[in-house]
């Protein structure tokens, strides 16, 4: 196969690369330019060079609070997602093939149904007189109705639910790849289930867990439909703020600057987290060897 001409892969890749460059990359470059333009009035900007958008961004802690809230919510949501995804992935990974496929499809449904449908379902439940309050009140768990819409709790409930599939799918794969005889061996040697989990299963599932966490974290950072519907404008995160600035206010230059700087932070975070996970993995393998 190595003898095939060099031109073939280029021809095969050309359409994909072309559409990516023209439709995916070019708009980002456009944004870079635009972030240095002057905002005249809603939806109207002037193409003169100015740093005012970045000055506005750096001089006002409000925007930093939005970045920070987005990161904080994403971290919390990713952690909860991890905790909930682990047991079900473990259960599914040990199912016989046919059943495994069906249950995997079942938990992948939120991903397939899309954010809009999930958010609508949650919205009906979270309304002041909706199902959640109705059930909690009638069971006597709470005395007074709680507020979910427009709170961080409400957004988190929605986010975790819609991102469990993202976390679960790679986890199921890596948990399924663990040789069951390893566990049996550990058990027959008298190790408690807990010890077996921490010493055998957890370390071996780390690659899947890491890729799931990275996917989930990134998806959380860029969340948009869920917070804008469940947050009701009270909780601004990165995605909903960009939408508001771009569509309701029409300040395109500033929304560009605000977005680009966020991308920069995301890039740095991704780099750091991959570096950290690599060193953790190394130290675990070293620990196991010792």
């Amino acid at each position, binding site marked *: 196969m190595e003898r095939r001409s060099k031109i073939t892969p280029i021809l095969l890749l050309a359409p994909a690369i072309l559409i990516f460059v023209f439709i995916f990359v070019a708009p980002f470059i456009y944004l870079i330019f635009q972030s240095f333009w002057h905002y005249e009035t*809603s939806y109207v900007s002037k193409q003169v060079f100015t740093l005012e958008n970045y000055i506005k961004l750096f001089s006002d802690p409000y925007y930093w609070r939005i970045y920070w809230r987005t990161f904080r919510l994403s971290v919390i949501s990713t952690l909860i997602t991890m905790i909930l995804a682990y047991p079900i992935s473990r259960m599914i990974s040990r199912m016989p093939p046919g059943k495994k496929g069906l249950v995997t499809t079942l938990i992948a449904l939120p991903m397939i149904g899309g954010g809009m449908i999930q958010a609508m379902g949650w919205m009906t439940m979270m309304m*002041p007189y909706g199902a959640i309050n109705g059930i909690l009140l009638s069971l006597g768990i709470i005395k007074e109705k709680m507020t979910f819409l427009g709170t961080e709790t409400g957004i988190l409930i929605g986010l975790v639910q819609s991102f469990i599939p993202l976390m679960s799918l790679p986890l199921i794969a890596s948990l399924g790849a663990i040789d069951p005889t390893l566990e049996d061996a550990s058990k027959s040697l008298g190790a408690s289930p807990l010890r077996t989990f921490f010493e055998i299963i957890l370390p071996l599932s780390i690659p899947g867990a890491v890729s799931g966490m990275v996917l989930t974290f990134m998806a959380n950072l860029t969340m948009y439909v869920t917070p804008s519907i469940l947050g009701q404008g009270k909780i*601004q995160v990165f995605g909903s703020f960009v939408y508001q600035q771009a569509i309701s206010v029409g300040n395109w230059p500033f929304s560009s600057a605000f977005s680009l700087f966020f991308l920069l932070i995301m890039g740095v975070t991704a780099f750091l987290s991959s570096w950290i996970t690599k060193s953790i993995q190394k130290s675990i393998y070293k620990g196991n060897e010792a």
Partner: protein
Amino acid sequence: MKKFSMFLLLFVLLCVASTVIASPAEAADCNWDEATCEILDGADFGGRTMVVGVWGGTIEEIYRKYIIPEIEAHNGKVEMLLGGTSDRVAKVYAERENPTMDIAYTNMFESAKGIKEGVFEVPSADAVPAYADLYDVAKIDAYGMSFAALGIAYKPEAFEGEPDWPDLWKPEYKGKIAMSTFPGSDSEGFLTIAGYLAGGDDTTPDLAFPKLAELKPIPLFFANLDELFMMMDKGDVVAAAVFDSYTRTYIEQGANVKFSYPKTPGAIVTMDTLCIVNNAPNRDMAIAWAQMSLSPIVQEAFAREIYFGPTNSKLVLDEEAASKVIYGEEQANSLIRMSTYMTDHRDEIVERFNREIAED
């Protein structure tokens, strides 16, 4: 068998022929006013689909009932794009090089700005004859469509008598005053009221925001009135600043809610406007639509069925119908009118609202 199919064919042909013959006859039988009939007479929209950006709910229903059948009778189709003004306006600006919308309904501030920026057509009686019949106040920078007044929708059991604006700031109602989502005409109007009560007007956000913030916590930011009136019914909310027309629809349907036109400093008048998008792909249809919208028939339906004040001076309402809407130029002018300040400073206002009101 062959004979039968021949008959069938003949029958089908006859049907087709009769509809073809019948349609011009229908067009001649025109129920609209003279100018509108002139535009509609013999019009054939060639099966094209026009796009109209408008609010959903009662307004949409009126258009479905009165205008769309007429467009369809002239071989045209209508697609209504429902949503808020800002979504619509953003779209019009974004696709200004290549518009796909024909009509966009906005408010008097956005239409003035859009005309200045060249995304909307300058209104004229040459294009839409009904423009000549509008009150002067409805001619300024727009095809004025309807008037509505911002007042107080309230839970009758919670107030003795009709509440005035300052009553909403009384300590016993703290945490029970709802607000509509921002940005939007109702919430911008309410912000203006806060400005007046703090000794300023709609151009003094420094006074208005702290005053409005006194109402926090806000129990509900509502997107529709169903939500608001349900919360009011359950007692979580006692009052909110809402437009009279929408509220009256609920009152007439028997909802347990009342409406007051406040005195201090007064109710705020707003005018919804119809804008023909510049270089609209179906301009002929847009003009027919605009002419029908402003005609006395639709204006009367607006007043009688969904309680919006008419802008067409040719329309005469009886006393009962008139009492339920903002009727006539005089009454419209007697109410508080906002300036373009909020629209011009939208970025600052939205941000201050985010920070000072929306966040708990």
